[in-house]
């Protein structure tokens, strides 16, 4: 169940969040995404939470960006439960 709304919910939900993982993070975690309990918080908090939930990706998470939909999020951007998010480790295209 995905709620794409960026608005914080009016009542405290017992929410979850699915975080998409890529490249070395997906390889280290041996999975393409992880669901975590999430009642809302900032992108910076999400990075810290991911590091706790998946210690194998902690080092990469610390130097990753967070994306919501098709845009990078600033560290203080609010992420609602059910939002569509991804953690973006340092890129190496080209």
């Amino acid at each position: 169940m995905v709620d794409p709304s960026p608005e914080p919910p009016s009542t405290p939900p017992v929410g979850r969040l699915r975080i998409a993982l890529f490249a070395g993070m997906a390889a280290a975690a041996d999975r393409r995404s992880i669901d975590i309990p999430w009642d809302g918080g900032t992108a910076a908090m999400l990075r810290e939470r991911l590091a706790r939930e998946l210690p194998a990706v902690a080092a990469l998470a610390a130097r990753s960006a967070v994306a919501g939909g098709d845009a990078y999020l600033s560290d203080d951007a609010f992420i609602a439960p059910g939002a569509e998010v991804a953690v973006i480790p340092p890129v190496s295209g080209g």
Partner: protein
Amino acid sequence: MSHAGPAEPPPLLTWEPIDTTGVLASVADRAAGANVLFTGTTRGVTDGLATRRLVYEAHEPLARSLLVRLRDEAAGRFGLVACAVTHRLGSVGVGEVSVAVAASAPHRREAFAAAEWLMERIKREVPIWKAEEGRDGVLDWLHPEPVPPHGAPPP
């Protein structure tokens, strides 16, 4: 304005070999006097170590969105007539093209500068990753320093 019939713009992301001639043709225009094509290819040797192939993956919606934004920004910033970019995903063998950028402008200086600027920004900001396949077949994903921006990419 294209006299030979407009060439299709290349896909921003593709799993197929890149048609570099098509990428260059897509920026052709009667208003252009300079046409630059850059291609990035898989090196067979990096730091003395043999590479068999590279494997690329992307956060596709974000990568597409940023590629469009950077391409359009390059066109405006350098006064280009046209600009095109395409990046390959999946397995890319030694010597094959992983990325192509084409820029056309009235004069060459702007076209060269735009291609260089665009490649620099792509490599720094667009969520695409490469892995080197080692002799054991294990993929070594590359996550180089410096870190990507926490939050918004640099202006």
